[in-house]
């Protein structure tokens, strides 16, 4: 088990597509990366906050929001909070892009 937070290189910035999520498992943790229209990269836990769970990787992406592909929850990529139509939250990760490499802190 990891006690201290570490920064991990998870992807090459240019190879990340815009418009759909990219699932990565990092030391067994399921995470999904979204490169949004303005070029920012966001990372959230790859599990729908809906009580039945489900993936977020194939979500429809709209600006800073994604729509959960299984239950259509609208989720903010900034704080992981569900905006509508239910409640809930998904874990978010700190993302940095340094010289073309995407790092997340976990």
């Amino acid at each position, binding site marked *: 088990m990891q006690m201290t937070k570490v920064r991990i290189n998870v992807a090459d910035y240019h190879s990340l597509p815009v418009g759909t999520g990219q699932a990565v498992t*990092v030391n067994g943790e399921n995470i999904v990366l979204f490169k949004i229209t303005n070029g920012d990269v966001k990372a959230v836990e790859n599990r729908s906050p809906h009580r039945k769970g489900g993936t977020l990787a194939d979500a*429809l992406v*709209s600006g800073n929001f994604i729509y959960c592909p299984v239950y259509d929850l609208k989720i903010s990529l900034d704080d992981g909070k569900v*905006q509508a139509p*239910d*409640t809930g939250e998904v874990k978010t990760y700190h993302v940095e892009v340094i010289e073309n490499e995407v790092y997340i802190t976990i």
Partner: protein
Amino acid sequence: MKKKLVMIGNGMAGVRTIEELLKLQPDGYDITIFGNEPHPNYNRIMLSTVLQGDKSIEDIIMNDWDWYKGNSIQLYTGEAVVGIDKQKKQVISDQGRLLDYDELIIATGSSSFILPVPGSDKKGVVGFRDIHDCEMMIKDSKKYKKAAVIGGGLLGLEAARGLLNLGMEVDVVHLMPHLMERQLDETASGMLRKELENQGMNFLLEKQTAEILGEERVTGLRFSDGSEIQADLIVMAVGIRPNVQLAKDNGIYVNRGVVVNDYMETDVPNIYAVGECAEHREIVYGLVAPLYEQGKVLAANLAGIPTNPYEGTICGTQLKVSGCDLFSAGEIGDDEGTKSIKVHNEFDGIYKKIVIRDNMIAGIVLYGDTKDSNRLFRMLTKREDISGMTSVSILEASGCCGGGGEAGDVKAMADDELVCGCNGVTKGTIVEAIRTNELTTVDEVGGCTNAGRSCGRCKSLISDILAFTLGDQYDTSAKKAGICGCTTLSKDEVVAEIRAKGLTNVREVMNVLGWSQEEGCSKCRPAINYYLGMVHYDGYKDERDSRLVNEKMHANIQKDGTYSVVPRMYGGVTTAADLKKIAEVAEKYNVPLVKLTGGQRIGLFGVNKDDLPAMWEDLGMPSGYAYGKTLRTVKTCVGEKFCRFGTQDSMGLGIQLEKKFERLDTPHKVKMGVSACPRNCAESGIKDIGFVGVDGGWEIYIGGNGGTDLRAADLLDTVKTKEEALEITGAYLQYYRETAAYLERTAPWSERMGLEHVKEVLADENMRKQLNERLDKTLERYNEPWQEAIQDNGIKEKYYQIRSVTVE
């Protein structure tokens, strides 16, 4: 510094009070709300419609999290207040949160009353009060067959109707000899009972429950007369009990409810009560209309604005069960001081009774025809003197023969006549709101005036008032419900703008037409993408990322995040070689479930996303589009080749149809069926388009549906040859593509357009030709998506790859 307002309870009356307060004094208080349910404020009244399957839980949220945030209200959900310290002016929650207040509102509502009979604590006994109860009933209905509802009042009957819709057998047990005896007289109650029996309810009247049977879970009921029935689910709907324990334990005066004066003040300074937990002039109310009036008074009191006292309310009751139009208010029985007017038209199932005391209406019972309820109810509440009126004019204000169209009714309405009973909104208020704020939809009227936001019964009247107020303008705007929250434009307007401005991609449409959320949402993006493809049939480049998951991935997502693979099997016909291939692939990729689908194909379920392209490659078959808004399957019977009844080549036509129209984008999924004789083994009568072989030709049926809203198809035409059948099908599909709203299936579409109209269009030879030309152009545009994914590494990486990073 702002004063601190704390509210206990996040229900309908409490939150309405806060809404009123925010209107009067937006920045008066720091507001904190505790609610022990895990949800933001929702419309409890609509739980009946959720149970009846008309609405989802998401649909009934009234104030979402954004609303709380936007108004800077601190909301703690799933957290109950357990103590009030009057001296220190503090509350404490079950999570140990300690909070100061300057003003405190108790709005804790009530709970279902659970009969204290032996066994009432067993599994399978529920009340009918909140989302949790509702979810439990829905869950149990999947596992069990027999339900008993105890209580034949409003709530019990609405619950029973819901359970029937969920596929259960329902016994309604009632202590009294009549249903809804507090609202209906014997005649009306008898009519209601008959209607509900026709709908499939079974009644056990004059039965007193003595014991609930079963071990851990219920298995049945025993009554005081010794008789028993079986039941796997028991819904208690015998009444409600105000939640007053908290107030009582903390020294606030409580009788049946928390006792308040005409300004909603309890006997403790700075503590108020509102809603079902409050008792005002010895009455505890159980409907929202009076509670909202209380909320208004309390809000004004908190804002320090002079207000009229709350003096009590007379309530009208309606039942939210389709097929049972009833309204009741005031006194329903007769005595020496009353006279009543009664009309009973047994033939049409209409009954009306007006109870009159001292020349005023004292009570109303209407069954089967409630259109006069608002007018009569207003006469009752305003204590209008009716001595000059004849019984006919009292009952039939709208005209001599009960006539007068809808708009006429609205015209005849006085400005101060109530339209929305729940929220106390009059016609005058609505008309004024429409005029000053240029409102065009029922939802907008609700946003401004609250009308229609509770039980929803008055929505059709609001729509009539809109039509009446806006005149000709309304007709165009009536259909105007914007396609989603990002725009106020309707489907027709969006399509017209795309054509007029020559817009060619999704971003551009949203930009040019002023979308409020820059990149759209999951409702408008797929719709715009579809409309663009329909308008620019000549070579539109589909925007994959605007599609919802199944179409984006070209496979159906399952609830665990795996996908399914369903290869095309034209007309449901396959070969031994293909079957072998499918079997080998299933084995190679450890497919957990191989299933024959309802559309005559083989589905491989539970496939990991990153295995999809390789499986498709190994299969080497085209995608069956089991996921798409497109032609799904053409079901066929074996027909003339083998069947001794068949006169036509059903498999041949089915395969031809499927090959021609596969991959076509349509507003919603499309299914076809081809049977070679009227025995109809391919169920062609419940397909979007179906063919039935008859001697010398084919009958063509359209607009059928075998899904949730079952609909038998209508006969469109009879043709002689396969070629004619294909031509009509092409024209029909294209006409549907061009005129339907995205996500509108052919069944509601053809009802909306009218069968005669569709017939006329398709009978026109020239029209048929043009439609087919546009369709053929469209068909040229599509590629086989599985092949594309196999060949294109970009697609593979973007959509199907999962990375894995390990750092030690």
